[in-house]
């Protein structure tokens, strides 16, 4: 009998730890998503400061509806812990989750497909494929001068961005010729490393 009660206590404890981990994960993910969203919106609002390049994403705005999905699950976990998660409440949560998911996809289509490119082009920025990492959801890069976007920067995009950041911090706007020279130099350094194999 005492063995059974000890076993059920241990199970309760592991369930609670499990739920605690899930809750922590959901909260961390929500906070991180909110920060990412804040920086993206902030960058778009401060576009008049004319940074040398803009790192954004066609997908990030979908998090406006993605974060409430995480929070919904966090609330469900808390309610379950308090034994207050009834069938009707759970089903209402699932329905809300479905609608938020549809809204998330719709936002991605409207913002990423129709708004972002036009907005940035209107402010003189052009999309730079070679500086965008070949990864799903990778932050995409738009440059203020098409001269900053060279095919040679494909394998050294982070180094090029670091250099542009340093130039911006020093208050210098490099000319396309200077950018070309620097990008070629960085690409040659990469090529030298690549040629070792």
């Amino acid at each position, binding site marked *: 009998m005492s063995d059974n009660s000890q076993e059920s206590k241990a199970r309760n404890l592991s369930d609670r730890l499990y739920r605690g981990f899930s809750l922590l994960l959901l909260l961390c993910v929500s906070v991180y998503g909110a920060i990412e969203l804040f920086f993206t919106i902030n960058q778009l609002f401060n576009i008049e400061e004319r940074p040398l390049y803009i790192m954004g994403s066609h*997908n990030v705005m979908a998090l406006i509806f993605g974060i409430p999905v*995480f929070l919904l699950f966090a609330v469900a976990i808390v309610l379950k812990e308090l034994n207050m998660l009834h*069938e009707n409440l759970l089903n209402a949560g*699932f329905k809300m989750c479905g609608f938020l998911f549809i809204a998330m996809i719709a936002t991605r289509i409207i913002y990423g497909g129709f708004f972002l490119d036009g907005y940035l082009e209107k402010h003189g920025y052009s999309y730079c494929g070679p500086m965008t*990492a*070949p990864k799903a*959801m990778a932050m995409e890069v738009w440059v203020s001068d098409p001269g900053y976007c060279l095919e040679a920067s494909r394998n050294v995009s982070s180094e090029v961005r670091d250099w542009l950041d340093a130039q911006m911090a020093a208050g210098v706007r490099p000319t396309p010729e200077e950018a070309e020279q620097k990008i070629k130099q960085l690409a040659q350094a990469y090529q030298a490393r690549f040629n070792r194999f």
Partner: protein
Amino acid sequence: MRPPHSSGYANLQAEKVKKVQRQTQIAHALEHHQTTLVVMSPEEFIEYALNVKKLHGMTEQASRDWLSAVLDVHGDLQQKWQQHDHQIQFISAFTASGMDAAALGVLARDLQRSGNTFATFQVRYFQGKPHIVFEGYPGLRKHLTGTRYLAANPKVVSMGIGKLGAANAIKTGFVVSVIVSVAFHGLDQLMNDQRTWHHFVGGVAADTIYAVAVSVGSWAVVAGVVGSAAMMAIGPILAVIAVGVGLTFIALYIDSHLQLSKNIAVLLEECEVQLNASMDNVRQVKSYYKSDRIGFLKKLFSIPDIRLFDER
């Protein structure tokens, strides 16, 4: 002496015939699968290809035109890949969620036929085993035509119903993500001349790490909520899709800062360089040992070079 028409003799003869037939089959198989391996430099290969075309009746000019056309197609393909590689990976990252969404669509349509898309199910125990009992009219449904199913029924699990269905959807999603990642990075290496095996291994390793993280996270969240006695039938699979897509978004945003695949590739490059340097040292030691064994052993065991008598 064995009598010539006994059954034992007949068996022996049959075995002999079978043995001969098997040997003939093996000989044929070996003959068909014989392959000649020729190692060529790129220049030799191009020359070989041009010669083959000439043997087929092409003129010198025509064979050169054919080669430049082939190379142009390859160049175009490379350019198109480089233009659209991140869009391809965006699609590939959500292949697993797309498959789950397809399963959700089939389930929702089936439930709609029986009266309500948001129909619930209940977990009831019959003969000590958990069964899933659906709300609505089973006769109107196309796939779930039974009144009740065992919770571990493959049809129910494959449609993502219940806790087992959710676990199955997450597991399948993980496997699909890894397969798609290997295919993507393999193609990326073919299409981009500057990609090496380091990028391939780094990319697949990073994708696998993120797939594990997303799968574990999705399971932790979904299992924390799903699992009560009664709930909406489409709930678990919907939860898997919504949480899975959300966590994939977050994981990939984190990666755009961490650049895990790139860092793993750089680490592998450095390891290879260090390994090559170590191998060079080993080779030097080996050649020193071969050229002067006594000197090598003296150096190895720090034996002083004592000369008792002057050799002069």
